[in-house]
């Protein structure tokens, strides 16, 4: 299936799907196209965020939208994250569908009151009378010494709050299709994008389409081990699977795509086949999303497990700046492959 295919670089796309005449688009361009089509098709959609109308256009993902749709619908904001989240929540309660954009996930803690106490709870507290169709996009940074306050992946925090949905598209196809779903969902959706995904190219249809929530994708089918990988780690997991091929190990790579709701069925079905589970996450391990997947295996797949679950995550320390420390901090394909080898030895 071209839409589930993970391609490591643009050349790989051109040598495969591109040759079949399929349109390739970068992750950033896929997001821009999704925004454009959403703004065109629904007058309730607005885009607000720091820098959405600046010459960079949030790394290209909102570039020039204000020129096309006007500053009534696409605009910059004061540096007032919690207040503006509240404004977006109120606007959502009163009929708009705001897409609120943060260039860095690290600024979300400033919005926590309005996200956790208001957006997440409003529908329940009002007995279902008022819903909050709000999408909060944010980018996870990495590298070039971005350090502790410009590189955090905080999605697990939000999966802990009832009333929020959390998505983390890994491919350009999903970036577009999940943004469409998020805007139409009618609930507050936290939308996490890894900055390093922005240049990846993949098949993206021109027309608007929705990728449903709660449906993971098998990025590589295999029979020996299940690797559940999130966001950027999907690529590392696919690379790891290629390394493991050389050892005669056939790994299955699963991308949940949406962390909440989670496609438990897909993970358990894979586990039934392989009996071994490695979770590759680009967030801290302790109480993180990887722990939820491990708990799923323990609670609902215990009888399927032939070996202890292994996790490849970020260490439980703040993100460092020095390139040498960054190297030590971020796990990659080789770490995933090693975890798989250990899982198979058990």
């Amino acid at each position, binding site marked *: 299936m071209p839409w589930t295919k993970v391609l490591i670089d643009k050349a790989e796309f051109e040598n495969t799907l591109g040759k079949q005449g399929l349109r390739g688009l970068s992750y950033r361009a896929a997001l821009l196209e999704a925004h454009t089509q959403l703004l065109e098709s629904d007058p309730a959609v607005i885009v607000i965020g720091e820098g959405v109308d600046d010459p960079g256009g949030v790394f290209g993902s909102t570039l020039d939208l204000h020129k096309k749709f006007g500053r009534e*619908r696409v605009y910059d904001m004061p540096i007032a994250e919690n*207040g503006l989240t*509240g404004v977006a929540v*109120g606007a959502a309660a*009163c009929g708009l569908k705001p897409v609120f954009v943060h260039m860095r996930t690290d600024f979300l803690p400033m919005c926590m009151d309005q996200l956790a106490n208001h957006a997440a709870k409003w529908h329940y*507290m*009002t007995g279902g009378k008022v819903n909050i169709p709000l999408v909060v996009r944010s980018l996870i940074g990495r590298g070039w010494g971005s350090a502790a306050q410009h590189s955090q992946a905080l999605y697990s925090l939000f999966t802990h709050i009832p009333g929020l949905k959390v998505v983390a598209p890994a491919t350009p196809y999903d970036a577009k299709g999940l943004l469409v779903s998020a805007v139409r969902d009618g609930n507050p959706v936290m939308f996490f994008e890894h900055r390093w995904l922005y240049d990846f190219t993949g098949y993206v249809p021109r027309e608007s389409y929705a990728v449903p929530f709660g449906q993971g994708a098998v990025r590589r089918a295999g029979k020996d081990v299940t690797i559940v990988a999130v966001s950027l780690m999907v690529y590392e997991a696919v690379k790891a699977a290629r390394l493991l091929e050389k050892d005669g190990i056939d790994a299955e790579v699963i991308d949940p795509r949406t962390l909440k709701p989670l496609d438990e069925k897909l993970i358990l079905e894979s586990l039934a086949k392989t009996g071994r589970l490695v979770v590759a996450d680009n967030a801290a391990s302790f109480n993180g999303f990887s722990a939820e997947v491990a708990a799923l295996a323990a609670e609902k797949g215990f009888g399927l497990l032939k070996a202890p679950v292994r996790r490849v995550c970020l260490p439980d320390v703040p993100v460092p700046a020095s390139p040498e420390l960054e190297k030590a901090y971020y796990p990659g394909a080789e770490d995933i492959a090693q975890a798989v080898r250990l899982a198979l030895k058990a």
Partner: protein
Amino acid sequence: MLRVDKKTKIALLRMMLRSRLFEEKIVSVYGKQDMKTPVHLYIGQEAVAAGVCAHLRREDYIFSTHRNHGHYLSKGADMSGMVAELYGRRTGCAKGKGGSMHFVDVSCGCMGTTSIVGGSIPLAVGGALAAKVRKEDRVSVAFFGDGAADEGVFQESLNFAALHKLPAVFVCENNYYATNSHQDARHAHGNIAKRGHAFGMHSERCDGNNAEAVYIASRKAVNRARRGLGPSLLEFSTYRWKGHVGPDCDYMKGCRPKEELESWQKKCPIEAYKKIILKEHILDQSGIDAICAEVSSEIEAAWSAALAAPYPAAEELYKDVYR
């Protein structure tokens, strides 16, 4: 001073009585402990809700706080849904999921209330933004207290509303206490209205126990919003007679001086207004009594209906988390 017509005068009195009698009923029954929700009573502040809401149309939005009963009743929210909500019943306006701090009545623009101090302020700005983007003729009002003026979102919201000239009205009810902390312990400068000037916004401070003063100040603010002249900040000086939460006074616990409470009780907004109504021959005593009787029977009917209503089924717990 602008004139207030006879019909409006009666409406103001009626709104205040509705709030007062509703909450006096809560006070009278709360000891039974079958209303299992924390109540934050508005007694003493009724003139603010009445004077502001008298200008609002059904489709105008209000966002309110934990101390919301008066705002909702004055905006025209369905009383029976509120009482059933207080009793946690299936027929409650939020199906028993909100309680006293989270009333809702979308049919009259009551879009919800928050018990996080300051939370109502940006939400109301969002309502004003939605009205502007959708080109709807609506005004959005944020009710909040002096405690909320301490919060960052207060400043953030005022700035954004002024920047985009949104049809918002910020109504600060300064009752001088945030829970038990007096304004003097919290604010470097006591005049909250002046902060609106920092954002170039029409701002006014006036007596919140004088229904007509509130009405006149609000008329200007609401009209400005409707005419696209942007938001206003109104600070109304008033006083809450009861403790922060619950049906009792709190001076005996040392939360504030008894004399202070008594001096404000002498300035009761309803008693003061009744005197004006009588003096100006708007109504005679029997006319006032008739309003009280009518409101009381509405209250009794709402109470009977609520107490007869079923509780939500346990399965209801899992509904409405998501749309």
